[in-house]
Structure formats: C-alpha cells, structure tokens
C-alpha cells in the first residue's frame, strides 16, 4: 500500500515540476584527453538519478560540472534556471551554496567540530547559524543523540548521516552524492540508502554517482557513462525503491 502511495506521489511531482537540471551536449577536454563527449541529459525535479560507469568513464568530471566545481569545455548546463556553464567562479560558489547539497564518499567532516557543528558549518557559509534547525536536521537522519560527538567518536555510517544532514540543512534544490555508500559496510549502506529513499519521497532531487549496480538500482534512472560518452539510460523498476 505504501509503495502505491509513494509511486503516485512521484508521478504527481513529475506532472507538476519541470527539469531542474538540463545538460545539453557538453564536452570536457583536459589537454588532449576528452573526459566527456557530447553528453545530453536532463533530471526532473524530484527525480532520483544514478550515474554509473567504470573508472575513467567521466563520472567525476560529470559530478564536478553538475556540482559547479568545474565548467564544460562546450555545451550548456542549466541548473534551476541558471546556465552554470557561463557563470564566474564566484557565481558558481553562490550556486553551490544555495542550490546544491553535497554528500561525499569520505564524508569530509571537520575533525575538530562536533556533529552538530559540522552541520552548522554549512549554515555558517550559507547565511546565519541556527542550532535548533541543525538539531532538527540531525534528528531527520536519526542522530540527535550524537549531536555533541566528534567525528572520530562516530561510526562510518553515522558520519555519512551527519554528511547528509549537512547537505540538507540549507534546503538544496539538488542533492549530489558521490559514492555515498562507498566506504560503508552493508548494514550502514542499508541505513543510508533508506535515508536517500526518504528524501526522495519527500520530494528531493538526487543525483548519485556510484559504481555499485545494487546501489544504482535504488534510483529511478541509471545513466551509464563509458569512455566519456553516455552509453545508455535505463529506468529501474519501481519495486526497487
């Protein structure tokens, strides 16, 4: 029953919202290396897309471009109405701050700050810190009791959940996850994927890079890159999420 309600909700979102990310024929060349070649892709608001591919396929380059940390050599990338391929470095910083929530494979928590403070760091660079809101964000990932713990006092799964709480704190338009379960054991992988699923149910747009087909299968669509080219896009069965 829950699955039916969830699928209905996803379909409703599709009808209401437009593409939040539109990638038009982008290429990225590093010296003589073509990291990406003529990629065209769109991600709708509320969609969960997985980007897969072997090492050297261009996943990281794609993430850098979507995450406003790099610009394509040619083509355009429209994120929430802004053509990020034409923005300055300073403007890209602003887009990253306001519209993107980043989840990293290695968590990248500031080691000398508590879980709560790590969440507040994102608030600090975004606007003004709000302890209550940061606590709520930790509560959302089930870590309200670990708020005052330092990263070294948390398990890998807990650190990743803090990283997710930090990504959510500024209400981003797009959650960009780079191998979010790459450093986790099976139990923690389940917890984290469940969190992503909840976020997706809540209407969050998620783009996730992974090399694990099992993890990619949780997404609605899997985009496969090979040698910098878009090899195929597959829709995953609804039962998988």
């Amino acid at each position, binding site marked *: 029953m829950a699955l039916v309600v969830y699928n209905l909700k996803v379909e409703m979102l599709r009808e209401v919202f437009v593409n939040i990310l539109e990638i038009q024929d982008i290429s990225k060349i590093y010296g003589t290396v073509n990291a990406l070649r003529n990629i065209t892709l769109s991600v709708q608001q509320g969609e969960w897309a997985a980007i897969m591919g072997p090492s050297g396929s261009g996943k*990281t380059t794609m*993430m*850098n471009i979507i*995450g406003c*940390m*790099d610009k394509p050599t040619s083509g355009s990338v429209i994120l929430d109405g802004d053509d990020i391929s034409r923005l300055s470095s*300073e403007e890209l*910083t*602003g887009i*990253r*701050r*306001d519209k993107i929530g*980043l989840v*990293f*494979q*290695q968590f*990248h928590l*500031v*080691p*000398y*700050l508590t879980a709560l*403070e790590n969440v*507040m*760091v*994102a608030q*600090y*660079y*975004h606007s*003004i*810190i709000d302890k209550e809101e940061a606590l709520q964000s930790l509560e959302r990932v089930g870590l309200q009791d670990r708020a005052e713990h330092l990263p070294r006092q948390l398990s890998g799964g807990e650190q990743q959940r803090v990283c997710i709480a*930090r990504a959510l704190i500024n209400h981003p338009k797009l959650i960009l996850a*780079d191998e979010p379960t790459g450093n986790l054991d099976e139990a923690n992988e389940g917890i984290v994927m469940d969190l992503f699923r909840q976020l997706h149910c809540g209407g969050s747009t998620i783009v996730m890079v992974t090399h694990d087909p099992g993890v990619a299968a949780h997404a609605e669509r899997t985009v496969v890159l090979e040698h910098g080219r878009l090899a195929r896009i597959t829709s995953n069965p609804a039962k998988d999420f």
Partner: protein
Amino acid sequence: MKKNTSFMIKMLCCSLVRRRSRMAAALLGIAIGAAVLLGMVTLCYDIPKQMSKEFRSYGANMVLVSSGRESMNLDDAAKAVRHFPEGALVGMTPFRYIPVRHNMLPYTAVGTDFDAVKKTSPYWRVSGEWPAKENEALVGADIAEYARISPGRTLAIDGRNSKHAKFEANITITGIVKTGGVEDGFIFMRLPDMEAMTEEKGLADVAEISCSAGEKELQDIAAVVRTDVPSLEARLVKRVIQSEAAVLGKLEMLLYLVTLVVLVLTMICVATTMMTVIMERRREIGLKKALGAEDRRIAKEFFAEGVILGLVGGLCGAICGLLFAQFVSASVFDRSVAVEFYLIPAAIAVSVLVTVAACLLPVRRAVEIEPALVLRGE
C-alpha cells in the same frame, strides 16, 4: 551575525588547539621576534641615557667664552651654569691662558681648577701627581720631552701681570700630562697661583662644561645662556657631540638591523608553518569551498588565525622582551632600563602585522585550492 562571529571564533580556536604543536612553533617564532623587537627598541630608547656617563669621558661638550674681546668673568660663568639641569651637569672647568718664559723660551701657562679638570676631562693621563699645593704645576708631554722636564723639577718662569709689570715665580712640576691634544704643549697651574702672579681675580678665557645631554638640549641651553648672560657665548663642542651621535647612530643602526633580521626570520618561520598547516588542511579548505565559502571568507579565517597568533605571540614576546632588555641593561650598563610602556602595544601590533604579512602567501595558496578535490577523495 553575532552567532556567526562566535561560531567563527570557536572554529578558529578549535583549529589552533588541534594543531597546537605547529602553532607552538609559530608562536615561539613570533614571541622571539616580538621579544627581540621590544628588547632592542627599549635599549635604543634607553642607550643615550645609559651611555651619557660613558660619553662624558670624551670631555666637555660645551664651552663658555666671552662674547666681547675682554676675558670672561667667572661670576657670569657661575650664573650661566645655573641653566644646566641639575644631575645632568658633570662639571665646569675655567681656563686662563697667559704667556710666560722659561730659560728665555716662550710657553703658555694655563690656570685651572684641577678637581674640575678630573670631572670634565677624565681622558687626561697624568704621570706623577696632580698639583695640590701652592705653585705646583703639570707640564704637557711635548714640553716635557722637548725641555727634558721630569716630575719634581722646579722651573723658574717669568711674565707680565695685568699692569704689564714683570713677575717671576718658581713652580714645581708634579706630573706630566698627556692627552694627545693641544694640552701637551701647555704648562698647567692652579688658578689661584696664576691670579697671584697676574694680580687679577675672577677671570678666565674659556670655561669647559661637561653635561649629560643631547645636541638639541644643549642647543636650547646655549640659547638661554646667550639671552640671560649676554657677556657670555655658549658654544657646543661639535667634535664631541658628533662623535657621541655617530656612536649612538651606529649602535642604533646595529640594533635595528638585528631587529629587522629577526623579524624577517619570524616572518619566514610563520609563513612556513602556515604553509604546512594549509597543506595539511587542503581537504578541509576544499570542503568549505564546496559548501559555498567564498575566497574572501577562507582568507578571512586564515588571517584571523594569523591575528590570534600575532596577538598571543606578541604579548608573550613583549613580556620576554622587557626581561631581555633588563638583563642586557643590568649586564652591560649595570643599571635597570626605563620601560616605555607604550612600546608594549606597539610591539604586539608589529607582531600582528608581521604575522599577517607572513600569512599572505599561504592564504593565497589556500584560496587557490579547488573545491573539486573533495570529490576526488584526495
């Protein structure tokens, strides 16, 4: 915004404490720089006072002469001396020059106060005894050599008194004076003995004054003397004053040079430490940039760390610097140094400036770090 500021301070403090061993190295460098800076500057301020006593061995630094053609009245000289600050005046020595003859050869006899000479001209080297009794005298080394005069010998001299009448006297040489200057060609006797020969009292041709004061202060005193005692003219002995200024100038330059070198070394030490810290924190900086931190905020955080280091290091260094100056002053000059308290905040401010300047290059490296490195798992 207040919340953000307190959060930033917390981040900075945590970051500094976490890297306490590196920060201790940077702090030590800054503290040494501040200590040397404050110590040296304090000494530079105090050395002219410290060395004034030593400089008085150079001899008189001012002379009083008559502003007219006649001789100077000693009462006027005594009046002029009252304008010198008490404590700074080392002494005043009158000199009265008259021509005399001995064995038909002309000499210059100088009447003076030998107790005052010992104060104002401590560089006089006397072989034998200083004159203490009536008709005792010193003879200059050149005359002693030329006329083969040795201590204990009695010389018969003659000359003309104030009424142009001839006088004759026998003087006993008690010692031979050698200065390397014009004094080596004179015969020195007690002023009362000369006054008895010439039958005139209270006159001198020149009075030498030794005073522990700088050139500017002496110029001011000379101006006052010229106004208050018009019969006298006060002149600065440029040779002595300029020698003092040259010694002080070179000493100060040496101290400032040492300070400059130490500050440059401090800057290198801090810059190296900050560069290492930034290399160690590449991922953290990349993360902050990935989260949306602008370059100026990254720079602000590192400069703020520099300011904290500069303040703490500068304060520790200032305290050590005062102790260092006291130690040097006690060991070299055998007296305590006068502390100029306004130099403490100045030394701390210079430490902060040096630290911030040392952070320039490392901060530039920090803002150049790409946020993308956090996605590459570096």
